[in-house]
């Protein structure tokens, strides 16, 4: 049994950059590399892709990431843990094996399944957000339960080089290798609480090392373009030191770690995961060197009896149109255009949003700050039940070219299919995870 292990986080969301993961795999001296690539919305979209093609439904960047990473993780004996399986971990495992064969690499992949609980739901369960039955939101497309570290442990006990999952709570991707390596008990609320803090800090990758932090002159970040992703050294007693590969850009300071500790947290004394209810109020941070932060003091209480389920439903379409106005009186011309569009569309849409980008569009206010902008982009958006209806929005905005105020330019139109997300709870005992092994 090891006394210290090192885990790197190479991706914090599906669209994350590839290079930092390659640097971690090459120079990070890692035991484990985690790629966290699954958001609430992403898995519902993946379920739709799987419905269209049963061999798809995994992360769209899987092939690209694996082509570059497989040789490095085999050469450096790193185990890879990722939720890139999304709606189809089995198809993802088979795809990884195909890539490994092309690269003449021996690879064993363990796929973790069981998070897809759509067949278990009737639609009459209540949504956490609205209190209403799920089916009142719209046609249900997907339902994925958040699995915990316990679902990954059987896979870690095999010889698999890669563990690929669908919906697993983000911190659990890190809790599992810690529990596996140190033989911690899943009932040890102190160890699992600290492991959950570690996982929560790591899960957004670059956000710990100065990504999403820089504010020139106020919070300057060195060599920002080459931002490195973090790794963490964890000792058997749970002590953790976060750092990054020397020579990479970015920074790890008390400030970057504090921002990430509270990111997307509701009550910091009760952070719900499938592994336990973690408590961040005793977390203690110390700068122990350049780009080195020690974290201790995570704790928690017994795991909840229910698992959270993220439910995707068909929410229709959004139509959008944009056009720009510039020079003298730009805002007033844009406002005339916006009000004209509102009149032309109001009989077809119940909910129309008009934004004057460059004035008040992002925060819905400018806190009384009203400089005259040189240029303004008008944006119109509305919800529709069909794509044909949604297209009307962009069509009316485009028609401003010959039917609107003077000098409008650069019209663009878009239609998005919308997958809504609500949540519900399911008894833990109803959710059974399984693993299956694939070999190349």
């Amino acid at each position, binding site marked *: 049994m090891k006394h210290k292990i090192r885990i790197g986080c190479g991706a914090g969301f599906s669209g994350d950059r590839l290079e930092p993961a390659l640097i971690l795999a090459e120079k990070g001296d890692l035991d484990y590399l985690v790629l966290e690539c699954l958001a*609430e*919305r992403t898995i519902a979209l993946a379920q739709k892709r799987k419905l269209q093609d049963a061999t798809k439904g995994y992360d769209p960047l899987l092939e690209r990431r694996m082509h570059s990473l497989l040789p490095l993780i085999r050469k450096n004996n790193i185990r890879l843990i990722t939720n890139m399986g999304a709606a189809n971990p089995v198809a993802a495992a088979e795809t990884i094996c195909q890539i490994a064969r092309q690269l003449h690499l021996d690879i064993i992949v363990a796929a973790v399944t069981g998070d897809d609980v759509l067949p278990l739901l009737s639609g009459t369960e209540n949504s956490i*957000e609205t209190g209403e039955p799920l089916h009142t939101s719209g046609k249900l497309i997907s339902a994925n339960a958040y699995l915990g570290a316990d679902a990954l442990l059987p896979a870690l006990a095999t010889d698999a080089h890669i563990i690929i999952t669908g919906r697993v709570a983000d911190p659990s991707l890190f809790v599992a290798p810690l529990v596996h390596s140190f033989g911690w008990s899943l009932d040890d609320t102190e160890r699992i609480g600290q492991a959950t803090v570690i996982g929560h800090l790591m899960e957004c990758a670059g956000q710990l090392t100065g990504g*999403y*932090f820089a*504010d020139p002159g*106020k*919070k300057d970040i060195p060599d920002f373009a080459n931002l490195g992703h973090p790794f963490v050294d964890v000792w058997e007693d749970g002590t953790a030191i976060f750092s990054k590969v020397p020579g990479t850009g970015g920074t790890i300071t008390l*400030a970057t770690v*504090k*921002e*990430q*500790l*509270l*990111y*997307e*947290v*509701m*009550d*910091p*004394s009760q952070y719900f995961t499938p592994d336990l209810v973690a408590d*961040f*109020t*005793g*977390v*203690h*941070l110390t700068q122990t060197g350049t780009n080195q932060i020690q974290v201790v*003091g995570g704790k928690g209480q017994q795991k909840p009896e229910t698992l959270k389920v993220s439910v995707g439903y068909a*929410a229709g379409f*959004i139509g959008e149109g944009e056009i720009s106005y510039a020079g003298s009186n730009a805002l007033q011309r844009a406002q005339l255009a916006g009000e004209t569009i509102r009149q032309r569309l109001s009989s077809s849409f119940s*909910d129309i*949003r008009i*934004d004057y*980008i460059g004035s008040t*569009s*992002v*925060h*819905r*206010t400018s*806190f009384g700050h009203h400089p005259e902008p040189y240029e303004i982009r008008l*944006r119109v*958006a*509305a*919800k529709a039940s069909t794509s044909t209806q949604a297209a009307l929005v962009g069509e009316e905005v485009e028609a401003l070219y010959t039917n609107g105020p003077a000098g409008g330019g650069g019209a663009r139109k878009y239609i998005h299919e*919308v*997958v*809504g*997300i*609500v*949540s519900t709870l399911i008894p833990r005992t109803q959710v059974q995870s399984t693993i299956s092994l694939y070999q190349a």
Partner: protein
Amino acid sequence: MKIKLYDIAHSRAGDKGNTLTLSLIPYKSEYYPILCNQVTVDSVKQHLKDIVSGEIIRYELPNLPALHFVCKQALLGGVTTSLAVDTHGKSLSFALLEMEIEVNL
């Protein structure tokens, strides 16, 4: 004198459905009591009245030190169905930092 929160603190926004979370972290720990005194639930509610229509809860974290605000009904329905430009509300950390407080620095 009046200063903006931006001058003494930093923040990151997060989203959970229609709920916005905002950390507020002083650059120096000696500013923490000033934030506790002046950045109250009521003052934040007033400052963000055009953005947050639901309840605001404040958590104190003297261990960091930092404050944390959970703002309900703040994201026009939430990331997937909102008609807003910034559907996550990720830029709203800088809306909080626009708030003015009175200090004797």
